[in-house]
């Protein structure tokens, strides 16, 4: 195709910051990486994009010394380098920022930065040296973090900066970031990109692993696409477009926007009046929320994370307690008594795809087939008799759901933790949607989910709506809210700032409302 560079092509004499030649790696019968070759020019931002399970993480783990490649070679600055462990990777100037941070939560920023890079048995000299270096780095790259702050008090965005500082402190010239924006708010992501551009201008080489096309288009110079362990193409970002990249990733044409007909709202399913939730610290997280959802419509809740959306989902899902009134199909729900639990909510026709599938939605150590009954373990079809559960029925149900939702690999006995994020989400979504609930609560439906699966999950949500069900969608991805919702409500500081029609509003207006400006509670 246009713009593709043949792998292994001889280019100019200047050595690349990193060059991989014919890297292969198999785990048993699974070929995670197959004959991968990339060249990353010095001082550039190189994106690696691919669906979950395409082999991106394996490739980076090889580069960082976690795995040893079965074959192939790694050249750093033109020198063949062997990287048997992460210490050698650091010596070779490679720094890695993982998706899940490797920080000691109750250490300060400085302590985390020198951890493993102490100069001697006494900490004081290292700390003061680190303090100086940190101040320089902060000035140079807009990487300002309070060096004495304790990690657990920092926001996710700041914690990520600490990870970057850790790498820079170890004199990394090549920085690998694995899905760095997955946990960030849009503003934090913008800041991160400014930092990355600054690093690039100083001659650092950056490898950005992501599955978000928008980020690739926004910040990278070149992009490599991986699919099923193979490098399908390396192209200049300027010469490609999201549709082409999506097709390269998935191997077929992908619809990047949601295809739906106008909503046909029916009777009111859910009514929420003056809903309040106070957390354990005594802080009021929901401060009088009013909303209603009718059958056959999707209400999207936009907002910066932490403005009460999580609490809204949790109180509706029976996880959190609250005060106020919630009516489901006209019947008032118990918000603080014996029936304010997940079982009662399910019985009332509410299904819940939680925001954090790994913490709430799945038991990660359970096999997939055990997870398909999670929350519905009282359902009659899963019982063999009064005493025993019907494990065979669970397995059969899991197999059927895996087939319908295209979960890969379709192995019911595999533990949930061994599936990729997208496939985990498909298991949760399949479980909740196939219960045919009157109301589906769905939080961050596509966080950490690859493109092919996003398209699929969006279709399922729309199909549920078209079947005359109500959907409450919470997402920090404004795009997702705009394209899926029939009505958009913006939450700020525990309140609904106002409602808009996604067809007539724009990101700017919603963004202002999300910041608590220009909103009016009354329509």
């Amino acid at each position, binding site marked *: 195709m246009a713009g593709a560079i043949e792998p292994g092509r001889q280019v100019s004499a200047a050595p690349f910051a990193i060059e991989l030649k014919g890297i292969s790696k*198999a785990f048993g019968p699974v070929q995670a990486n197959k004959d991968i070759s990339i060249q990353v020019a010095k001082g550039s931002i190189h994106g690696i994009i691919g669906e979950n399970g395409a082999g991106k993480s394996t490739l980076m783990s090889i580069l960082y010394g976690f795995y040893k490649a*079965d074959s192939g070679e790694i050249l750093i600055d033109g020198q063949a380098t062997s990287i048997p462990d992460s210490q050698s990777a650091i010596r070779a100037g490679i720094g890695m920022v993982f998706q899940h941070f490797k920080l000691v939560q109750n250490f300060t920023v400085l302590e985390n930065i020198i951890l493993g890079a102490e100069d001697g048995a006494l900490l004081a000299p290292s700390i003061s040296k680190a303090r100086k270096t940190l101040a320089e780095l902060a000035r140079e790259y807009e990487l300002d973090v309070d060096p004495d702050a304790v990690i657990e008090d920092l926001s996710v965005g700041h914690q990520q900066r600490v990870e970057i500082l850790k790498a820079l402190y170890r004199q990394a010239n090549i920085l690998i970031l694995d899905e760095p924006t997955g946990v960030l708010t849009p503003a934090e992501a913008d800041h991160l990109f400014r930092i990355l551009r600054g690093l690039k201008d100083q001659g650092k080489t950056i490898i950005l692993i992501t599955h978000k096309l928008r980020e690739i288009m926004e910040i990278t110079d070149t992009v490599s696409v991986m699919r099923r362990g193979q490098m399908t193409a390396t192209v200049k970002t300027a010469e490609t477009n999201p549709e082409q990249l999506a097709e390269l990733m998935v191997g077929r044409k992908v619809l990047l926007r949601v295809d739906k007909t106008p909503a046909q709202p029916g009777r009111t399913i859910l009514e929420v009046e003056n809903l309040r939730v106070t957390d354990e610290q005594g802080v009021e997280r929901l401060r009088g929320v009013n909303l209603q959802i009718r059958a056959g419509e999707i209400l999207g809740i936009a907002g910066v994370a932490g403005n009460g959306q999580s609490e809204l989902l949790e109180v509706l899902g029976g996880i959190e307690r609250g005060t106020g009134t919630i009516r489901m199909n006209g019947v008032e729900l118990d918000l603080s008594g014996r029936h304010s*639990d*997940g*079982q*009662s909510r*399910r019985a009332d026709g509410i299904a819940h795809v939680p925001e954090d599938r790994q913490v709430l939605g799945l038991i990660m150590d*359970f096999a997939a087939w*055990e997870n398909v009954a999670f929350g519905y373990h009282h359902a009659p079809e899963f019982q063999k008799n009064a005493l025993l559960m019907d*494990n065979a029925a669970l397995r059969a149900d899991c197999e059927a759901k895996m087939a319908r939702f295209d979960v890969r690999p379709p192995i019911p006995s595999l533990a949930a933790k061994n599936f990729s994020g997208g496939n985990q989400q498909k298991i949760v979504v399949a479980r909740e949607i196939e219960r045919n609930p009157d109301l589906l609560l769905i939080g961050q439906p596509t966080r950490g989910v690859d493109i092919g699966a996003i398209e699929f999950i969006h279709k399922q949500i729309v199909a549920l709506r078209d079947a005359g069900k109500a959907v409450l969608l919470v997402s920090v991805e404004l795009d997702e809210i705009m394209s899926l919702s029939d009505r958009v409500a913006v939450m700020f500081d525990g309140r609904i700032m106002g409602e808009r029609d996604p067809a007539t509003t724009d990101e700017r207006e919603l963004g202002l409302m999300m910041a608590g400006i220009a909103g009016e509670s009354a329509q």
Partner: protein
Amino acid sequence: MTKLPTWADVVLVPVISLILAALVSAVVLLAIGQDPMQALSVMVNGAIMTPYGWGYTLYYATSFIFTGLSVTVAYHAGLFNIGSEGQAQIGGLGVALCCLFLPWPHWTLALVGAMLAASAFGAAWAAIPAYLQAKRGSHIVITTIMFNYIAAALMIYILVDFLRPTGSMDPASARFAATTALPKFHELPLISDLFLRYTAEGAVRLDPQGNPMYQKVPANISFFLALLACVAVWVLLWHTRLGYMIRAFGKSDKAARYAGISAVKITMITMLISGGLAGLMAINNVMGQAGRLLQNSAEGAGFIGIAVALMGRNHPLGVVMAAILFGFLYQGGAALGLETTIPMELRIVVQGLVILFTGALDHMVRMMLGLVFRPRQA
């Protein structure tokens, strides 16, 4: 770290840990001037080479299976029950009251009654720490440890002030009626012949009434109850809805909340089952072996149960195997004390080493095996 094949994980790791423990034990023996090979052969001969040895090994193993299962069930709910010792002692009180004060026509009925009493008393003793954990957030590890001490003190009080027959100087109850005695291995059909005594000429030794004489062993039919309990625990954990909820809660209490699984309910029910299993141990030692309630009846079996559960990977089958191993160490250690000049306390050293290697240093063995099983580089 490389993931080990299942067979290596389940078989090879414990075997290597045991060999390492044996090697270090050998060094200890050499250091006190003893012959390790002789010690090993005495232990093996004393504990497993004769039916008589098995009669003791399996008696100990029976107790350990019950307490091991007790720890296992609690573990699956994410609860660390260190109180099996106290629960077993209070279970013993239940057995004693049941056997002393109710007229049982036959041991089968007495067994049913005593099982109910033992499990009810053990469960009741576990219920208080469970309630404190579920409702008040007091950590169950702390409270169950404290309840072991309370149980020990309470038992002395009850034995001395209430159950001790007048005139006796021993802090123990009266003997139970003969109708409550459980059949021991040498009294069971089919296997009793294994325990026949022989004269030097090889003939079966007879008592003055002309009946054959048997070697008396403490192992009794509660061993089979223990095996049934293993099956029951396996079914409970992996084939019932309650077990599903217990395991889900144990893996993630947050997710359990999402699913509408009540933390209070699961904590209470699990600890009642766990305490009940610990209490059932008293069927073996109080009813089956002693025939009366002694002070400190559990004799540390509750604590061994923790090691057994740990080594048995909190699976009933593993618990059985680990319990038999610890039974072997108990009985083999006793044989050492009888037949050699090696102090009997050495068995505690060996047990300690086994726990150290199979429990605490398990990861070390895994890492070493991980290197062996690492996929070959091309």
